[in-house]
């Protein structure tokens, strides 16, 4: 099951540039929450801070409090590898391991996390591919085909399966469908909707219609601040803040 995320006073820097200025946000468990905003507003930085991916960039660091369920992400002693296992991430461009088979792509995370039992690995790979709605399309070529031989939409679902294999509680998605055609996009969106039964999903998107279609809650970021955070239908029909309204109506950004 998914867990809630409590963010308090989250600040992030790239060297001397402060790019997030103290974000407070409560993300409920087993919901899809969308993060929207113009380029450079800090939305990707924000989600990358949730699983400590931000600090993998040289000179980038963050401070504040992020609690994912009971886990204190920035608390002393938290292990970034364990954080990233519990908070999976899917990126804009599908990035399967190109030479590995479909099976090995999904199993890679499991092996990294110390799984050795082949039967258990096979079960988890099948479960993950089913959750990612890819199983039926690839079950006969799991070992024959490479990840790179799949279509863009299939590759992205493969990456989702890979993220799900290690049984995370939260799934972060940074523009997961922006490089896909409309049919693949709609499959990913349908999948996101299904996934919230098991996971808490946070999705960064430039596509406001996509946020409106998949997310129950939406946060609008602007210049490193969370301007408005509310039910998605409220954000897209009657936002409270003029800046949100100007953005969602395309008057800037």
């Amino acid at each position: 099951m998914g867990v809630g995320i409590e963010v308090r006073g989250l600040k992030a820097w790239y060297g001397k540039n402060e790019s997030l200025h103290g974000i407070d946000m409560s993300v409920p468990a087993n919901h899809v929450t969308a993060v929207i905003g113009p380029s450079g507003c800090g939305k990707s930085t924000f989600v990358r801070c949730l699983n400590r991916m931000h600090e993998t960039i040289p000179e980038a660091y963050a401070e504040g409090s992020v609690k994912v369920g009971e886990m204190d992400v920035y608390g002393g002693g938290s292990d970034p590898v364990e954080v990233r296992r519990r908070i999976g991430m899917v990126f804009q461009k599908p990035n399967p391991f190109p030479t590995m088979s479909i099976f090995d792509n999904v199993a890679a995370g499991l092996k990294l996390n110390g799984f050795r039992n082949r039967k258990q690995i096979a079960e988890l790979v099948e479960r993950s591919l089913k959750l990612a709605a890819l199983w039926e399309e690839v079950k006969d070529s799991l070992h024959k085909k490479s990840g790179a031989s799949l279509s863009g939409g299939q590759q992205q679902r493969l990456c989702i399966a890979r993220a799900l294999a290690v049984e995370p509680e939260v799934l972060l998605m940074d523009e997961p469908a922006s490089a896909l055609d409309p049919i693949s996009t709609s499959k990913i969106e349908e999948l996101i909707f299904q996934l919230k039964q098991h996971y808490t999903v946070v999705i960064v998107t430039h596509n406001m219609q996509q946020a409106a279609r998949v997310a129950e809650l939406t946060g609008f970021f602007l210049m490193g601040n969370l301007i408005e955070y509310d039910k998605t239908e409220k954000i897209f029909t009657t936002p409270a803040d003029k800046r949100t309204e100007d953005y969602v109506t395309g008057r800037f950004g």
Partner: protein
Amino acid sequence: MRSRFQQGLDDLKERLLRMGGLAEQAIDRATEAYRTRDSKFCQMVLAGETAINDAEREIDELALDLLAMQQPMAVDLRFILAVLKINADLERVGDQAVNIAQRVLDLISEPEIPLPVDIPRMADGVSTMVQRALESFLDGKAEVAEAVLQMDSIVDRMKDEAFVVLVQKMHDDPACTRQALDVLLIARSLERIADHATNIAEDVIFWVRGADVRHGGAHYRE
């Protein structure tokens, strides 16, 4: 430079206001027909109905195109929804003007008799409501729309009073039943037009403030 979308919204607004002008004209002509007992004005109302119906269709099409092609959000989405609803109300205003014109034609064919109902005064009130409702739409002024809502009860009262005196008149003087019935139906059509003006005002408030004030409350989305 205006975006194509903004041009579409401006076009929609302009067309709706033009249609509103036609609906206002229909009310004024129907009222003039009653005042002067001149069938020429009735014919003008009947002939003008097609233009209102055509305008309704064109506005619906344009609004549908904007929804499908531009996927508007927030204030723009509320604006287009308001336009679609106001469009339907204005078309019904046109229908009611036609109903009045038909009743006036019937009245003209009967001997003129004095009836204790001031239809022109009621029509002036109703016409003002439609005018103010369209003005609130033109300028996006919710406070003007609120004033329209206040006027509805006055028209309702006028219609109720007309019903009482006309029913009494029919009872007292059955020979004038036909004329009294025509005037009663005209009063009812005017009251319906006032209801449409009220709907238009409510839609303007929804567009501007995002508040649903229908059915006597101010409901904001939570």
